[in-house]
């Protein structure tokens, strides 16, 4: 028996290259990058080079990045630009980190359609001369639906220019949470037109506890932590050197193989989807035209998804219900509610996300096991009804 991991959107294993690159920085090259001696200066240079590498992947420069302890911190830092009571717009399917931050302000949610795609008309209707912050994820963490970020950015830019011409001083910033999608989509800040972008190492085969926030040139951020003035004063604290080295290695590797990996994963998803499609009652969620290639969210109305997960876990097949964090708290997924699913559809929803740990062989194996598990659960329920 061997594990078949189908939950790459929750966490990814650190790649061999990233791990090997990190190791020297725990012991031999442990110096504080701020220390005066040459050995420490060398660490500083390695660190800056790694940051530059990360920045390069998203089409930015080293000085545009603030390294954080992950996407949640990046998101918190981005929101910290706002004065109290600012007007904020988020989509109705954002991650809890965005949602909980928005709640601190005067916020409104932008509707999505039943595939999770942002309703641009609703966005335009809600964008007002008072709006100061817009936060939309690059792709939904539950559905994989890719959002029209460049279109939103264009609308934000138009509003900014209108304000300039009208001598209005209210600023407006566009933040995009790109935690999901990096490594499978080309993510370039220039093309996306964002002012702030959150990225995360743990979803691209880098270590957990490392992320970054891209900060555009016109954006004057306020730090959340003050102290020694690291990260241009935006995030004090001794640098996480091994973490950043690992992040840089992992993200560069992902970029290098982006197209081949995308094709490979897309083909695996096709195999899996075809195999599952004859299960009675199965619904495929998300937007087939605009979906991250590794996402296969499904729903089996009438079944309890958690039971399926436990049954599959016994066969060493790991996948998720909705978003991992929502499920364990027993809270109904906000995303699945927002796309209009019924309670039974939500209760029966599973998120399958593929990645490096999958190949043709284990996907076929997983498909058979998932199918059998679902069908036997359907049978069990039917028998108990009589």
């Amino acid at each position: 028996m061997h594990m078949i991991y189908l939950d790459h959107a929750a966490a990814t294993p650190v790649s061999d290259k990233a791990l090997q690159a990190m190791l020297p920085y725990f012991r031999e090259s442990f110096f504080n990058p701020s220390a005066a001696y040459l050995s420490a200066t060398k660490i500083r240079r390695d660190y800056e080079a790694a940051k530059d590498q990360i920045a390069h992947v998203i089409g930015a420069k080293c000085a545009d990045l603030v390294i954080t302890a992950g996407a949640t911190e990046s998101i918190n830092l981005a929101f910290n630009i706002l004065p109290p009571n600012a007007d904020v717009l988020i989509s109705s399917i954002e991650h809890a980190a965005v949602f909980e931050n928005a709640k601190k302000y005067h916020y409104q949610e932008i509707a999505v359609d039943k595939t999770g795609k942002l309703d641009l008309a609703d966005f335009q209707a809600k964008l007002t001369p008072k709006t100061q912050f817009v936060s939309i994820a690059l792709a939904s963490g539950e559905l994989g639906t890719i959002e029209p970020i460049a279109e939103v950015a264009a609308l934000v830019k138009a509003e900014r220019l209108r304000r300039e011409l009208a001598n209005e001083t209210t600023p407006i910033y566009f933040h995009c949470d790109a935690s999901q999608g990096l490594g499978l989509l080309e993510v370039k800040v220039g093309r996306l037109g964002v002012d702030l972008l959150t990225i995360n190492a743990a979803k691209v085969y880098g270590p957990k506890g490392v992320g970054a926030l891209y900060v555009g040139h016109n954006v004057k951020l306020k730090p959340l932590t003050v102290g020694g003035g690291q990260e241009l004063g935006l995030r004090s604290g001794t640098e996480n050197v091994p973490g950043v080295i690992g992040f840089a290695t992992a993200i560069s590797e992902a970029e290098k193989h982006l197209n081949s990996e995308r094709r490979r994963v897309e083909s695996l998803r096709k195999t899996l989807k075809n195999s599952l499609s004859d299960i009675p009652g199965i619904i495929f969620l998300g937007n087939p035209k605009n979906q991250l290639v590794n996402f296969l969210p499904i729903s089996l109305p009438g079944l309890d998804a958690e039971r399926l997960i436990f049954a599959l876990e016994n066969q060493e097949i790991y996948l998720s219900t909705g978003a991992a964090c929502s499920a364990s708290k027993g809270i109904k997924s906000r995303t699945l509610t927002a796309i209009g699913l019924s309670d039974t559809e939500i209760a029966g929803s599973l998120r399958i996300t593929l990645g490096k740990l999958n190949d043709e062989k284990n996907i076929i194996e997983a498909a058979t096991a998932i199918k059998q598990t679902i069908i036997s659960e359907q049978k069990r329920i039917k028998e108990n009804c009589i």
Partner: protein
Amino acid sequence: MKTVYVGMSGGVDSSVSAALLKDQGYHVVGVYMKNWSKNLPGMKCPWAEDLADAKRVAVKLGIDFKVFDFETDYKQKVVDYMLTEYQKGNTPNPDIMCNQEIKFKLFAETAFEQGADFIATGHYAKIKTTAGLAHLCKAADDNKDQTYFLYRVRPEILSRTIFPVGNMQKPDVKKLAEKYGLENAHKPESMGVCFVGEANMKDFLAEFINLKPGEIRELETNKKLGYHEGAILYTVGQRHGLGLGSGLPYYVAKKDIKQNIVYVSKNLNADKLWTNEIKLKDIYLRDTAKQVEVRLRHRAPLIPATFDGEKVVFEKPVKKIASGQSVVFYNQDICLGGGIVAED
């Protein structure tokens, strides 16, 4: 096929109970009772993990699984009772109240309403029926016997209750768990109040009750020895946690709730720590026997005593137990009921 609803906590005893019932041919429905889900400062409530564990077992056994949400009732009938009792200076036993009000009342009634023929739990106790009347009896495993916590369960509920592990030894239950492939076979048992644990009782109470610091005085001399965080936190007979430095240990001999003073003594033989009789209230007895054996705390040895309908009288003095605790009566293996220690 008879239907049995099994209260499943995710622990080994209730998991094995469900497995045994399934093997015996019952239509088994596992039920997780959601009694408490709030995290309190410094105390993570493990309900979501427990629920997941219980559900995992249900999936493994291929049985139905439900969640009964008793949170409101549990707060009212168990937690509020506990808080009120502490505020009066008593030391209540919430597990006994939980069995009386939640597990063997609300859970049972809900299960029967939904069509269950029986309920079952993983308690260590036996039920013997004589002349159509169900009696609560001690478990086969003396070490695990939980009748002390079950003495207030009514016979009409007992007659429809199954304790599948009641006639087994705990080590055998663990072996069975492994045989059934139940992952949680080695999960630590929950101790004390299911959701708090004894160690955290003070923090738990502090969340709900406004504690006032007060003086600790020596019983014999009335001399001030130090300070406490609130007299209600102390239990007569208690030895630990007085923070009075080294030397011979002090025992709590008396609490003055009104003045918020805790009296302690180094003298284990101090009169206040011993008694020949215990006055009971809220008595629930299924038998009017005068000569009985009593248990003063869970797993404590049985002590012969006489009961006059109000007081339990002992031949030799016994160490006092706090008001609010239970005295449980036995006639050999049969648990006859008991009562709650009245305030002095």
